[in-house]
């Protein structure tokens, strides 16, 4: 390898393949310039062996004079000095001259070449016109070339080329140049292919021998690098890089195999202790020093790696891939450290750090050297790893050399530093003049504490900036945290705080527990140094409750708090408020009673379950929850209901007064809250119309919207009480109302604390803050969520009276319950209810009446006797003493008298002077029962006003009466219907006259004195009237009977009277009506279709009495008093056809036994026993004001009155019906009669007309059968 030493110049990057030139040197010199210019102008395709892809290649060459020394000797594999082509130049055109000298020279050249086995040669014959002109005796020009070809190129005629007039600008010259160049390129490539192929084969053979004992990696390295050099020379950097990568991989594999126990001998040299750690050197294309070390087999692992990487770096930069350099650099550095460990190479402590640090900076410098600023900034992500690595290494060096401390380094540290610096050696000449060289930096950094700090901060900040720029915030924070550690070591906690805070925040936000604990511990240390008492205590509290710490550590932090708490308070600040979250977690609250709705003054207890996070039992002097009181007045009853619902609908409320506090996932404690939004709490909402509770709208309501929609800012919230003061909300609210528990010991874990809630005033109480005091320290939870609240209501005393059964029945004594809800009123001894007595509803009291006292929860408290005093007007019930918010119940019997029917309006004065409201009675729609609203006026002790309470009674019976006649005899029937649901016994029905007249006697026809009346059944009673004197016009009767429920035990005393009064008018029979149907003359029976005679005789039965006479319309005609009657024959069942007029008016003389007969003709329409047609009689009252209407003549009377009648009957003026019914004769006169005053018709009272023929029938035969039925029998 002496060649290298002789010609070091070849190691510049300007290397070109060598081409030797023999022959006419002056000729070549003249052509050299154009040749060197034109050779690389066109590219050639290089086809390569082993299936490698062909490449287009621009050839260049280094033309040197041929010397025999240039030819490679055997075994020399140096490729760079290898002449790839030998050219012989001549311009001989003279045969003589050729034979004389040139040929011999050529032969010599050839033999030298052959001797060295070189077959890559070319003979160039240059022809020029000038030479031809000078020499006249020239042979044809081809002859020289032919001769040469004959002599030398015995089968390779292409080895000799002609170059014509190379220095002239002619087309011939051009053509010959291009032919020559093509030939030259082709031959060069052929030579490359051949020689490189041979070289590669040799190399591969060598590599295969690597398992042989004598094999050396360094030797092989040199060989393969030779190939890399050639590729580089040919500008095939990719191929060159491949060679180095192969070497790299081979070496790595050996190291790994060594690690696996398969050691190679040659590796021994690499296992030598590392003595130099000067870092990478990337400024030179080839680091000859290292290369020589490798060549001599003296290189250390770091040397080899450094050299290899410097070569790779050079090639990558040629390939314009600087970012791959940084990536590979990082890999290399990691790998080297790893390999040294694996090979168990002894390295001075810190030496590797130096090496890595220098190398990182060197790579970064190299990259900066070949890229502009913009490019660098855009590719931070590639360089930042190196920056970080360098920072880490510098930091560890700093720690190692005692530079990170408040004190100056010790002598031991200084010795170590000197040792490390010694290993760096001298600074390389390349960087001596550079102020910022890595070497200088390291030297300076290790020289003093201040310089170290400067460099370390510079690097750290640079790395952090880059991380920030590319958005790797976590990495940036990690560097920040390591900076903070540095500052803490330097005793500079102010600067450390910011970094720690930043890191802690991010860890808390992302929920990494271990980091949080670790950083928080550092933070605590920092805060302690800074004397930020409050923050320190807060952090201590968090740490004391941190399960990731050991028990001792937790106790230590807990003790810190306790120590502070027990110190006498400084005059400046009294207490320190800390967040409760670190101290304890709320688990649940439970109200007792569970409804959380109580009346004023009632006992309400609140059980709070707290998980204390402290490692030791804590003495809490006071645990207080402030209450927010809002006065919400309203119907206490209604509010109670809504409050109940609210409590039950709470997020975790189960309706049993338990409020569960949501627990953040145990994983991150407070941190999770920040990273995960709280779950949606959705509830169904229904809006009902207040009047009829129909649904008006419905929807979904999000209850924790304020949590979900709040700004997620980074400012400190209670969840992350890491830094700074706690938010102002923690300011302890000195609310007047508080839940308080004093001197509690909170054990680690779950504790239960019982509070007694104040219930002094009505309103709603909401728990706002929870505050536990331990000496000077207060633990405050500023919000309690979900909302915990309870309601206190105040209730007015209330009295209600309710029946025991569904309905109260009038007439029989029944029990009603008096219920007194005492509300806020306390019933004292001597308080009494004053009931105003009414006649219609007496209070039936017995002495053995007792009252029950119930508590607000319905518990039976006691029973005491009631004393009831009754005076004429007032019933006084003295109540037993009852505490407030209790219920007093007792029962009394009341009786509502059934008012006689029909009721008479009577306004009476009540005993207390009020106008008595007449009991209203109206028909009960459902059952047909008549009800009576009975109002009771009660004076209650708690009010100056009387209370009116309405009770509704139902009358159990309904009575009807009717009068029945038989001729002159009269009967009264009373029908009593039981409309209630109860069965009764009815006894002693009696009918009396209210103003008894001697003349009349009522004879009872009832057999039974007592009979049952079942529900919804009726009983009929009958009396006959007998009288001596003429009856009065109006008869007042009263029906009375006794009734008792069937179920009543003591029937005799239980019988209660029932009375029914009625009035009968115009009882006596005035007329009797008799009808007779006579068959047509000569016939025995009526026949269908045959007219029969109907004779109606109306007979006056009695002399009208005085009173009656007034009422009866009578006219005096010629001294004879007559009344007019109208009769009408109506056959509704269509059995009869009335022929002729069916109605008429007759004048009846007012005299007994006066009879009027009317003859009519009727025709039966059917055969059989036909009932008589109906005959009706009305009083006919002609209109007094119109005398003209008075019938004057008998003849015309009938006709006229009928039409009038028709009008009169249908008083409502239904003309359609008039017309239809309308008799034939009324059509014409109907119009003129309209508008005229009309006579009136008035029906008789029942009983005034007795119809004799009621129910009579007459036999009607069918007409004689004229039809003959022929029956043929065959």
């Amino acid at each position: 390898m002496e060649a290298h030493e002789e010609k070091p110049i070849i190691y510049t990057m300007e290397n070109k393949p060598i081409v030797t030139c023999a022959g006419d040197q002056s000729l070549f010199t003249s052509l050299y310039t154009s040749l060197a210019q034109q050779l690389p102008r066109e590219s050639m395709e290089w086809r390569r062996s082993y299936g490698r892809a062909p490449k287009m290649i621009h050839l260049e060459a280094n033309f040197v004079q041929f010397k025999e020394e240039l030819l490679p000797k055997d075994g020399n594999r140096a490729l760079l000095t290898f002449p790839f082509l030998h050219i012989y130049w001549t311009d001989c055109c003279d045969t003589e001259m050729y034979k004389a000298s040139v040929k011999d020279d050529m032969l010599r050249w050839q033999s030298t070449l052959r001797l060295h086995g070189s077959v890559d040669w070319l003979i160039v014959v240059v022809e020029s016109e000038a030479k031809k002109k000078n020499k006249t005796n020239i042979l044809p020009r081809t002859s020289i070339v032919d001769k040469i070809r004959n002599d030398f190129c015995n089968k390779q005629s292409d080895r000799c080329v002609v170059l014509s007039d190379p220095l002239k600008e002619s087309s011939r010259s051009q053509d010959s140049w291009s032919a020559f160049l093509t030939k030259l390129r082709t031959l060069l490539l052929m030579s490359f292919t051949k020689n490189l192929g041979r070289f590669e084969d040799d190399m591969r053979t060598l590599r295969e021998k690597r398992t042989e004992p004598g094999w050396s990696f360094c030797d092989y390295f040199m060989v393969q690098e030779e190939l890399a050099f050639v590729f580089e020379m040919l500008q095939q950097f990719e191929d060159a890089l491949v060679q180095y990568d192969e070497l790299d991989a081979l070496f790595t594999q050996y190291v790994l195999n060594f690690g696996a126990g398969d050691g190679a001998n040659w590796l021994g040299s690499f296992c030598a202790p590392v003595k130099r750690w000067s870092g990478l050197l990337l400024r030179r294309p080839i680091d000859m020093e290292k290369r020589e070390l490798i060549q001599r087999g003296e290189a250390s692992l770091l040397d080899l790696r450094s050299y290899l990487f410097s070569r790779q770096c050079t090639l990558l930069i040629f390939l314009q891939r600087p970012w791959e350099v940084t990536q590979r650099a990082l890999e290399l550095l990691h790998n080297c450290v790893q390999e040294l460990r694996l090979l168990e190479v002894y390295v001075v402590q810190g030496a590797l750090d130096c090496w890595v640090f220098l190398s990182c900076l060197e790579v970064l410098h190299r990259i900066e050297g070949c890229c502009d600023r913009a490019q660098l900034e855009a590719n931070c992500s590639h360089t930042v790893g190196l920056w970080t690595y360098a920072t880490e290494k510098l930091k560890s060096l700093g720690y190692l050399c005692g530079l990170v401390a408040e004190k100056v380094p010790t002598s031991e540290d200084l010795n170590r530093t000197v040792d490390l610096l010694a290993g760096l050696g001298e600074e390389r000449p390349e960087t001596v003049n550079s102020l910022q060289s890595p070497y200088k930096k390291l030297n300076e950094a290790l020289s003093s504490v201040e310089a170290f700090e400067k460099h370390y901060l510079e690097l750290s900040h640079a790395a952090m900036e880059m991380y920030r720029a590319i958005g790797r915030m976590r990495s940036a924070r990690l560097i920040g945290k390591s900076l903070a550690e540095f500052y803490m070591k330097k005793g500079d906690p102010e600067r450390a705080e910011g970094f720690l805070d930043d890191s802690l925040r991010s860890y808390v936000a992302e929920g990494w527990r271990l980091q949080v604990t670790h950083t928080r511990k550092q933070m605590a240390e920092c805060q302690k140094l800074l004397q930020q008492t409050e923050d320190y205590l807060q952090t201590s509290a968090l740490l004391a409750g941190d399960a990731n710490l050991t028990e001792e550590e937790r106790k230590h932090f807990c003790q810190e708090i306790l120590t502070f708490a027990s110190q006498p308070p400084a005059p400046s600040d009294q207490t320190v408020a800390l967040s409760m979250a670190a101290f304890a977690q709320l688990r649940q609250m439970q109200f007792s009673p569970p409804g959380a709705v109580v009346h004023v003054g009632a006992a309400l207890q609140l059980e709070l379950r707290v998980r204390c996070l402290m490692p030791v039992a804590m003495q809490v002097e006071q645990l207080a929850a402030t209450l927010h009181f809002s006065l919400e007045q309203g119907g206490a009853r209604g509010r109670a209901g809504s409050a109940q619902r609210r409590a039950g609908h709470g997020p975790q409320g189960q309706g049993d007064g338990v409020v569960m506090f949501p627990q953040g996932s145990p994983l991150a404690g407070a941190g999770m809250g920040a990273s995960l939004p709280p779950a949606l709490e959705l509830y169904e909402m229904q809006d009902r119309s207040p009047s009829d509770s129909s649904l008006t709208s419905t929807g979904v309501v999000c209850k924790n919207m304020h949590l979900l929609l709040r700004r997620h800012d980074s400012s400190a919230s209670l969840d992350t009480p890491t830094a700074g003061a706690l938010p102002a909300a923690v300011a302890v609210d000195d609310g007047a109302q508080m839940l308080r528990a004093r001197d509690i010991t909170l054990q680690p874990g779950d504790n239960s604390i019982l509070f007694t809630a104040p219930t002094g005033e009505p309103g709603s109480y909401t728990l706002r803050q929870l505050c536990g005091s331990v000496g000077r320290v207060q633990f405050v939870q500023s919000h309690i969520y979900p909302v915990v609240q309870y309601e206190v209501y105040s209730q007015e005393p209330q009295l209600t009276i309710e029946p025991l059964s569904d309905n109260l029945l009038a007439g029989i004594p029944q029990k009603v319950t008096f219920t007194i809800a005492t509300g806020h009123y306390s019933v004292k001894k001597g308080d009494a209810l004053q009931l105003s007595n009414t006649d219609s509803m007496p209070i039936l009291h017995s002495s053995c009446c007792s009252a029950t006292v119930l508590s607000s929860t319905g518990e039976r408290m006691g029973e005491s006797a009631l004393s009831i005093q009754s005076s004429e007007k007032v019933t006084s019930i003295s109540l037993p003493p009852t505490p407030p918010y209790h219920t007093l119940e007792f029962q009394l019997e009341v009786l509502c008298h059934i008012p006689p029917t029909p009721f008479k309006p009577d306004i009476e004065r009540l005993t207390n002077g009020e106008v008595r409201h007449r009991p209203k009675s109206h028909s009960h729609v459902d059952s047909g029962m008549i009800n009576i609203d009975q109002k009771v006026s009660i004076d209650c002790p708690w009010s100056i006003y009387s209370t009116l309470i309405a009770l509704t009674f139902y009358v159990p019976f309904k009575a009807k009466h009717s009068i029945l006649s038989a001729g002159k005899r009269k009967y009264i029937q009373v029908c009593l219907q039981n409309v209630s649901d109860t069965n009764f016994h009815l006894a002693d029905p009696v009918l009396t006259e209210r103003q008894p007249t001697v003349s009349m006697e009522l004879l009872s026809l009832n057999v039974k004195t007592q009979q049952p009346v079942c529900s919804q059944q009726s009983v009929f009673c009958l009396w006959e009237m007998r009288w001596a004197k003429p009856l009065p016009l109006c008869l007042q009767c009263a029906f009375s009977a006794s009734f008792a429920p069937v179920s009543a035990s003591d029937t005799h005393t239980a019988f209660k009277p029932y009375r029914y009064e009625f009035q009968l008018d115009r009882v006596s029979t005035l007329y009797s009506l008799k009808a007779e149907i006579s068959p047509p003359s000569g016939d025995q029976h009526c026949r269908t279709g045959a007219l029969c005679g109907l004779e109606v005789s109306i007979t006056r039965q009695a002399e009208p009495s005085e009173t009656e006479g007034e009422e009866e319309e009578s006219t005096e005609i010629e001294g004879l008093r007559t009344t007019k009657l109208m009769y009408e024959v109506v056959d509704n069942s269509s059995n009869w056809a009335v022929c002729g007029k069916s109605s008429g008016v007759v004048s009846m003389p007012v005299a007994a036994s006066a009879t009027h007969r009317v003859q009519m003709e009727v025709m039966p329409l059917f055969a059989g026993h036909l009932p008589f047609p109906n005959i009706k009689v009305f009083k006919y009252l002609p209109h007094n004001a119109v005398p003209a209407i008075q019938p004057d003549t008998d003849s015309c009377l009938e006709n006229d009155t009928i039409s009038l009648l028709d009008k009169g009957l249908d008083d409502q003026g239904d003309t359609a019906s008039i017309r239809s019914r309308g008799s034939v004769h009324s059509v014409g006169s109907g119009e003129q009669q309209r508008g005229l005053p009309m006579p009136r018709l008035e029906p008789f009272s029942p009983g005034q007309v007795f119809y004799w023929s009621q129910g009579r029938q007459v036999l009607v035969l069918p007409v004689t059968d004229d039809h003959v039925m022929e029956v043929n029998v065959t």
Partner: protein
Amino acid sequence: MAVCIAVIAKENYPLYIRSVPVQNELKFHYTVHTSLDVVEEKISAVGKAMADQRELYLGLLYPTEDYKVYPSHMIIVYYTPVCIFFLLIENILLYRHTRYGYVTNSKVKFVIVVDSSNTSLRDNEIRSMFRKLHNSFTDVMCNPFYNPGDTIQSKAFDSMVSAMMVQAS
């Protein structure tokens, strides 16, 4: 094989993290946490192509040479000189019946830290580890008693992870 296995929730908090040896837990937590930077970078770089891509494997992620400082005697001990991080983005769709009936797309991340001195580990083996991890994680998710977002406390998952971890000698 692996020295640390972590399952990280969409919101970047650990659902599961386990490492051997235990005393270096904190360091692993820091490393895994920091590696999330690169994870996020990769995810955003891959961007929308991820959606239809079935390949969830992100490959070698975050090589580092780490060391541990014992503050007591200031000796630098090289622990795992090169840790190799592999990452898989968990992208299974979780159909769960919730009250509100929405579907979450869980972007759960898996991180495996491998001791780089273990050179025999091939890419394929890392992939198969991820596949196992993924399957086991899916099982955990299918547990009706598991609440997505909670830390994983499944014994089956734990034993699977144990099997993949090298037992520190």
